[in-house]
């Protein structure tokens, strides 16, 4: 999974067509560490990026990320669904419905 900056977020997420998952995480967050491999499985066949909330505070603030891990599914560049906390692979895939 590629970790992206706020600048890359503009082109890879905001200007994207279709579905893109973004995993907002932090290095020090225990649940995030355990969530990462689950998101990693989904990333094998879906577009998934990670945003470090410590490095990209303004972006996390803009999307009102206040609990991590926070996974947001963007559809055509707009927030479609979000989930907070560790969820299963099936639940991640289920966000597309």
């Amino acid at each position, binding site marked *: 999974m590629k970790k992206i900056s706020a600048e890359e977020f503009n082109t890879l997420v905001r200007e994207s067509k279709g579905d893109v998952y973004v995993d907002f995480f*932090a290095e*020090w*967050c*225990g*649940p*995030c*560490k*355990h*969530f990462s*491999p*689950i998101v990693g499985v989904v990333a094998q066949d879906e577009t998934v990026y990670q945003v470090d*909330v410590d490095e990209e505070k303004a972006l*996390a603030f803009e999307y*009102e*990320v*206040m*609990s*991590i891990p*926070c996974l947001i599914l963007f559809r055509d560049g707009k927030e479609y669904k*979000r989930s*907070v*906390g*560790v*969820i*299963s*692979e*099936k639940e991640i895939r289920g966000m597309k419905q």
Partner: protein
Amino acid sequence: MIYDLAIIGGGPAGLTAAIYATRASLKTVVFEKMTCGGQIIESKKVDNYPGLPHISGAEFAEKLQQQAEELGAEIEFEDILSFEKLGENFKLRSDDAEFEARAIVMATGVAPKHLEIPGEAELIGRGVSFCATCDGNFFKDEAVAVIGGGNTALYDAIYLSDICSKVYLVHRRDEFRGDSVLVEKLRAKENVEFVLSAKPIRIEGESRVEALIIEQDGGEKALAVSGIFEAVGHSAQGSKLNSELKTDETGYLIADEKLQSSIPGVFLAGDLRQKRVRQLTTATADGAECISSVLEYLKK
């Protein structure tokens, strides 16, 4: 494939059971619905597990999982929804698969209780949190409320008081269940205010938390906060897997002195069962102890 033992839940109790079971040469599978480790992955630092001072909860969980896997335990990421005894063995079902095992250890743990008040569900992840160490930094220099009267609430309030400008500690009683040494520590902090004999009744905010409304002294009061950290206890998980599982009046599953549940061949380990102390040490102790009973059961 028929497993000797199916362990439901990959937290400290379940993974310890897996370590003991594989070392006893049982063909063992651990079913975990999300990620191994259980609640401990939310602890930034574990200071009360003998021999491993200052280890992070996440690292502890990783080591435990690695140890279980190295010894030969299989870990399947499946959400087991039910099980039943069919003939000699148990059949376990997830939403799209079936498994068979000769015995079961349930180590499904507990989940945090919610306040279940208006505004809460809509604002989870937008100011309402169940993990102070995960989310505290989002509320740097802001006012927050911690709700609860046990050690989790007290530890959360101490942690948050170093980050936030103000911490309201809201509790429905006028004294705390948690350790007095923690209460004293909080009393010494200038930015912590005790709000006692107070009942949270509503959370207000449009896209994020703006206030916690409490009932106190017969009237309503608004606490202007941007974060609300709930620590109001836990509820045992897993009793719905089989209707014959007996629970106490608070929902914890009942085991006998051999950690066997009300269903022969189904054993209980960890926080889900009725017991006095729920700690990492008692969870791992359960995991070890129940395997002796599993071995005894399988010999019959």
